[in-house]
């Protein structure tokens, strides 16, 4: 997927300013930056949810799926998990059950979840359902917008593991958005740092993390809290 000169304006305010990025097939690009840096706006524009200028090429329109930050508002409270997961899948009637089992299995949820409603699941389980729903549409690109920041720490780890497994299994191309550099470092191959709607640094994760060139990237890295080594 190639993003070229993408610009999003809200009135006179420019939220994303001529961003050009390349995400080779099968790789994961991490997008980091602070609140207001335009990273979520960029994601929504790429997903086709916001009007924008510039182009997104290398991906069939409609084959981009997104997983949202808040697992509590991203599932329809009046739809069972099974219905939600199959919403985007084109499945004949007699294959539905098998398809639900396959999708839930993919995100390590028991088939018994299919008849439940979102309110009966925990935050981590809901996020898995949202991932399964996105995968059902066989996306060429999966956008994950802060998918772990509303989750508790112990659940966050499991969701990150799942993303890594899915990447290895399905060869997913991903745009992974997070304010947490450590999380991005763990999941992604390349990383792009945004500030004030512009791209300030962009490169392989190890390179950016170990030898940051931009002072802002350095400030971000310094601010990551870490446990004192014994």
């Amino acid at each position, binding site marked *: 997927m190639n993003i070229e000169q993408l610009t999003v304006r809200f009135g006179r305010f420019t939220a994303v300013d001529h961003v050009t990025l390349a995400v080779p097939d099968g790789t994961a690009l991490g997008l980091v930056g*602070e*609140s207001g840096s335009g990273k979520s706006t960029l994601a929504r524009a790429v*997903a*086709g*949810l916001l009007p924008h200028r510039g182009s997104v090429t290398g991906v069939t329109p*409609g084959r*981009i*799926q*997104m997983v*949202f930050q*808040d697992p509590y*508002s*991203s*599932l*329809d*409270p*009046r*739809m069972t998990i099974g219905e939600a997961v199959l*919403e*985007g899948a084109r499945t004949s009637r007699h294959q539905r059950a098998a398809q639900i089992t396959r999708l839930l299995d993919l995100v390590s949820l028991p088939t018994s979840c299919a008849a439940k409603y979102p309110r009966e699941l*925990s935050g981590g389980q809901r996020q898995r359902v*949202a991932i399964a*729903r*996105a995968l059902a*549409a066989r996306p060429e690109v999966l956008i994950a917008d802060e998918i772990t920041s509303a989750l*508790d*720490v*112990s659940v*966050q*780890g*499991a969701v*990150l*593991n799942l993303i*890594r497994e899915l990447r290895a299994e399905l060869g997913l191309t991903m745009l992974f958005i997070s*304010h*947490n*550099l*450590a*999380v991005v*470092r*763990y999941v992604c191959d390349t990383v792009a740092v945004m500030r004030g709607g512009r791209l300030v640094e962009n490169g392989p994760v190890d390179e950016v*993390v170990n030898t940051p060139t931009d002072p802002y990237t350095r*400030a*971000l*890295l*310094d*601010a*990551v*809290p*870490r*446990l*004192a*080594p*014994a």
Partner: protein
Amino acid sequence: MRRLLRTPAGLVGTTLVAALLVLAVVAPWIWGSDATRINPAQIGQGSSAAHLLGTDALGRDLLARTLVATRLTLGLAALATGIGTAAGIVLGALPSLLPRGWGRCVVAAVDILVAFPALLLAMFTAVVTGLGGRGAVLGIGVALAPTFARLTHTLTASVAGSDYIAAARMLRVPRHRVLTRHVLPNIAEPLILNLAQSMGAALLGLSAMSFLGMGVQAPSYDWGRLLNDAFGHVYVTPSVVVAPAVAVTLAGLGFMLLGDAFAAAAARTIDPVGDAVLPDLPKAAAPADPDAVLEIRDLTVAFPGGVTPVRQVSLTVRPGEIVGVVGESGSGKSMTAAAIGDIVPHPGLVGSSRSRLCGVDLDTLTPAARRKLLGSCLAMVFQDPTSSLNPALRVGGQLAEVATLHAGATRAQARARAVERLDRVHIKHPEHVIRQYPHELSGGMRQRAVIAMGLMGTPRLIIADEPTTALDVTVQREVLRVLREVVDESAAGALFISHDIAVVGELCDRVAVMYAGRVVEELPAADLAADARHPYTRALIGSLPDMATDRSAPLTTIPGRQPAPGDVPTGCAFADRCALTTARCATRPRLVRDGQHAVACWEVS
């Protein structure tokens, strides 16, 4: 249903409406012949034994006629409500189906119709479509439609903004299916609630139309028509208007009350079941720590229904020390802070075997003295700085107020101190900032201003509940630095509550890890990385990726979920998620202290 009958209004409304429905069904069978029997001998009479509420111009019994008219009145009202609702929902949903420009036109049209007086709209429609029952029903239906359209449109708009609609759009679900599958089911409840009230309004409107002669025409009759007929005699025999007037009033009241009760029942206010019960907490026998700014033993918070979010938590904070409390949501960490600050919401109960603040035993104080001590000794900083500052007042005034209120400072002194305190939390140009409003500050500045506000007195203890969770990492770093400096300089103690074990490890001196309402491990923060012993603490650390995490290995995960505060098992609460569980874990392990380190686990201590 039970909820509906619990309030007096609900009970009255339900009874009235139920009685009306029964009447509508049975009245024509029972009194039908009385109502139509013409009796030339008893024309226009007042109340008598044979005709309780008198007779009309043809000598027909008015009470019987009123009772029989129930069916037609309710039927027409239901029909009008049906028309209004259907038209309203279609109008309200159209903007989400039509192209943008057309949608806006529909919204504008609805806005104009809402501004139009309803009865006028009804009469206009009735006149255009022809006088009579049909015209009146159509008229009232049209009059009801704009309100329903507005309600539908507002509700639709709020649902349309949710993430699941965005997800459906990306899954290429067609717009009409988004409407029928996602939007309508999620807005149905408030619409149905509104039905009962609309029914009342339709009934009143129809009666008004018939009374004015624009509704039901003879020989048919509804309550409004009966009133119209009787009105000519009202000065001669006043009792003739009683029956239809009372019927209209009661029916209108019944539907309105029922609508209110529906809405109240749907709001689902969870009523507490019984009272909160605290366990027996005998006074602590061990001597109190003379240096500690905060010493609590066996702090317990209980809510009705056996919900106990905090269970016998003991914490000590010494001067110049930051103690971290870390745990996931539902671990009781915030409730612990609330209990210390005496702000546990009603109907929660707080108990302890000892609670000392600044060397004073809080249990011996009167409520007033206790509030005074908390007000002068304790500063609290919360997650959302926006809600801690009054948006309508300037920053300086809010800070100064603390000093004038608690320390009796003059305005000039208080102002000078506000500037000095803002400077201390590294806010640039404090003289300028005190004249600004909270919304003019950035999130990090606001949180520092709240800390400065806490410092306006001379707090001995600062409780910070997730103070940096809403902030960006670079801003978080500054706020943490300010907190550390303040504690070092003023020798106050601090209790720092967070879900982020890395932040806690970096900032704090000692850390208490909470799980299911209890402290499961307490250790020096420096030991977190290498010497955490409790399996939960270790899993928490392992599940958090940091800049040195091995990218080829999966993160540690904890299966299952934390028990809710209402159903914590009697044994070790972590047992069913733990890899080390043995038979011993069916009994709850005590917190065993070994020097600086305390851990509640059978398998590691």
